[in-house]
């Protein structure tokens, strides 16, 4: 457990970074957001902390030799394990054994090959592997360093984050991100209003025996237990009438804790104007209620809305990512770079990350068994936790509404293609899933093991799948059928893998891609079909309707002409997919 020397307290949140402004579409600090999902290679799944300058250069050479650069793989990203474990004169510094030439020289080398160079850091005080070189409090000088090194891609993790109970952080930090238990409020000299009579929004808060409300905050999205859909934060709202415009006082009867979704930080908004946003004095225990000091509020004549809430989990994290971005944009105003948030979905980043980042991780890691030089690492198809292809897919597949050009991309973590534990069929489907879902395509294997034309190469170099992922419309596939979700297959969170999904993705020129996916480890037989009219209901003008269609199977490359607007698959082997690019044909073309 990491404990800082002086326990820091989160600062004030700028209005533009606050919860009520999350949905604003303008990216902050003029960050360029008009990009498709990033493609490249990241060292973590391939080599873990054991990546070196030599391995990186060899990987870059292999990207060229395998023709991957021409397919769009351009970013070569150094993940954790490349820095000295302590700062040198306050600055980031290369591990001189693993990266003897330094990062600028390596960046220059990568650039000379026509590739782009990426690095890694963390919004906390330390990196996840422990090095005391996190950007927290060092954003200005770290932005200078990344600019000096001409970095094109920055992946930023969330370990040791001091303003939440993140991985390796003090678990008591949750005091910042949950409100205290609330028993009642009192406005001026009026009677107390019991908390249980207020309106609770969102899934986190509830009324406890004893009549108080607990759990006012944002659900932790790191694990696979919660759907990402809908309101993920809870507030306690009171509606009150006032006979006139008046200045008065609000008192809150509360009790604090530092665990079990009870904290010490309260936010109060009256008619959507924040009037309080701070720690409250600690109480003896979470049911030892006391009355707060008065909070000055202004009521308007008529109906007033008082919100008791805590959105600091999201706001603190956004603020930290924004601070680093602000310094990066200041150091290199014209520099175009990819900013990849790796806070594991903890703070429901799909709600806010589009303001600053190009992609956001949606869950904890896809594998905890990364490779090393000589060891390919291990990946799984299924897992009870996040460490599998299907764990990540199950969540990302219903998040299409959150992504797009100008917004950013859901990131179900790096590809595990090439790791032990996954069959050829599973690797094929892993690639198809990620391409259909507009996920960043970051390879995570030792490319020295791949030969041009071999089975792995055929998967990662599948031009048609990559074209689906990089289609200029930038529309993530929608799940239009799920054998385990009778209603709203596009929004229902299904973790049972014994099912078949059908994904549909509009492509430029009124083409579309269909992917029939057997998520289970058993063969499936049935009449899995899609008709164009259903697609047009979902996607409107983006789907072309015709009497005949050209159908390309992206795996076999077989092309057929299909009459009518119904597309079916009758049988899918275990973990297999059949993915097609479908082009409507006019009478002339047919």
């Amino acid at each position: 457990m990491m404990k800082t020397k002086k326990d820091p307290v989160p600062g004030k949140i700028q209005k533009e970074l606050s919860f009520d402004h999350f949905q604003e579409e303008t990216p902050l600090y003029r960050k360029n957001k008009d990009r498709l999902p990033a493609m490249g290679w990241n060292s973590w799944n391939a080599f873990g902390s054991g990546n070196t300058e030599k391995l990186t250069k060899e990987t870059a050479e292999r990207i060229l030799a395998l023709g991957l650069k021409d397919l769009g793989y351009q970013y070569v990203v150094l993940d954790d394990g490349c820095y000295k474990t302590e700062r040198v004169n306050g600055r980031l510094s290369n591990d001189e054994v693993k990266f003897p030439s330094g990062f600028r020289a390596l960046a220059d080398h990568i650039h000379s090959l026509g590739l782009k160079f990426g690095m890694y850091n963390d919004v906390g005080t330390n990196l996840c592997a422990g090095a005391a070189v996190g950007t927290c409090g060092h954003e200005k000088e770290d932005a200078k360093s990344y600019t000096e090194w001409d970095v094109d891609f920055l992946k930023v993790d969330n370990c040791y984050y001091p303003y939440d109970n993140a991985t390796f952080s003090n678990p008591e930090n949750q005091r910042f991100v949950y409100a205290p238990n609330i028993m009642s409020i009192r406005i001026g000299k009026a009677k107390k209003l019991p908390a249980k009579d207020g309106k609770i929004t969102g899934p986190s808060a509830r009324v406890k025996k004893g009549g108080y409300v607990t759990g006012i905050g944002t659900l932790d999205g790191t694990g696979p237990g919660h759907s990402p859909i809908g309101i993920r934060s809870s507030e306690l709202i009171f509606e009150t009438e006032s006979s006139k415009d008046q200045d008065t006082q609000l008192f809150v009867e509360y009790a604090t804790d530092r665990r079990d979704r009870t904290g010490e930080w309260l936010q109060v908004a009256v008619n959507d104007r924040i009037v309080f946003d701070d720690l409250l004095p600690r109480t003896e225990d979470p049911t030892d209620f006391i009355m707060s000091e008065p909070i000055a509020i202004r009521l308007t004549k008529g109906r007033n809305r008082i919100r008791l809430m805590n959105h600091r989990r999201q706001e603190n994290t956004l603020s930290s990512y924004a601070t680093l971005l602000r310094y990066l944009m200041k150091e290199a105003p014209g520099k175009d770079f990819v900013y990849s948030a790796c806070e594991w979905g903890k703070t429901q980043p799909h709600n806010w990350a589009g303001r600053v980042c190009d992609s956001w991780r949606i869950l904890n890691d896809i594998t905890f068994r990364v490779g090393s030089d000589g060891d390919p690492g291990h990946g799984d198809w299924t897992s009870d936790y996040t460490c599998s292809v299907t764990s990540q897919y199950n969540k990302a597949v219903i998040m299409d509404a959150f992504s797009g050009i100008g917004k950013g991309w859901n990131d179900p973590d790096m590809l595990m293609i090439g790791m032990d534990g996954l069959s050829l069929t599973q690797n094929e489907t892993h690639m198809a899933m990620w391409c259909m879902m507009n996920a960043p395509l970051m390879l995570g294997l030792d490319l020295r093991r791949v030969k041009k034309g071999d089975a792995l190469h055929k998967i990662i170099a599948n031009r048609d799948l990559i074209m689906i992922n990089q289609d200029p419309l930038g529309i993530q596939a929608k799940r239009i059928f799920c054998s385990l979700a009778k209603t709203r297959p596009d929004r229902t969170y299904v973790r049972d893998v014994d099912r078949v999904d059908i994904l549909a993705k509009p492509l430029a020129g009124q083409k579309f891609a269909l992917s029939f996916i057997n998520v289970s480890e058993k063969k499936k037989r049935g009449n899995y079909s899609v008709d164009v009219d259903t697609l047009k209901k979902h996607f409107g003008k983006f789907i072309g309707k015709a009497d005949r269609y050209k159908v390309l199977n992206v795996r076999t490359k077989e092309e057929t002409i299909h009459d009518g607007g119904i597309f079916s698959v009758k049988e899918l082997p275990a973990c297999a997919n059949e993915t097609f690019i479908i082009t409507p044909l006019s009478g002339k073309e047919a």
Partner: protein
Amino acid sequence: MTLQELADRLLDISSARPEIPEDAVKRFREEIRGTFSNVELCKPAIRKNAARMLHLYLLTVTGEPDEDWGEYASLKDIYDCRICANAIAQVLVKGIMKPQGTGKKIFGGDELLTEEEASQILERIRTRYD
């Protein structure tokens, strides 16, 4: 026992075995240096960092490949530490360290490594060569 002391005792074991290549020991030292800061090495060892160090030793010195996590994939706290998870699973699977708690359902990564447990661990490492 500090983490550095644990490393020193592991190196003592390998130095008493002439069949262990010098390169392997050198690689272990390099891995320690690249993995743990001086601050961490000087602190009393906690179980998860001990697991990481032992895992490095198994990989570099005794040359043992990783194994399937088996039953330890369902430990309640196995996923608490992404950096440590595999190391913890490996030292458990290989019998170097033991789980804790009622029903042996947790690892207890943030608990201090006791002298007694350290002695047991080092004995298990020593006898792996026999």
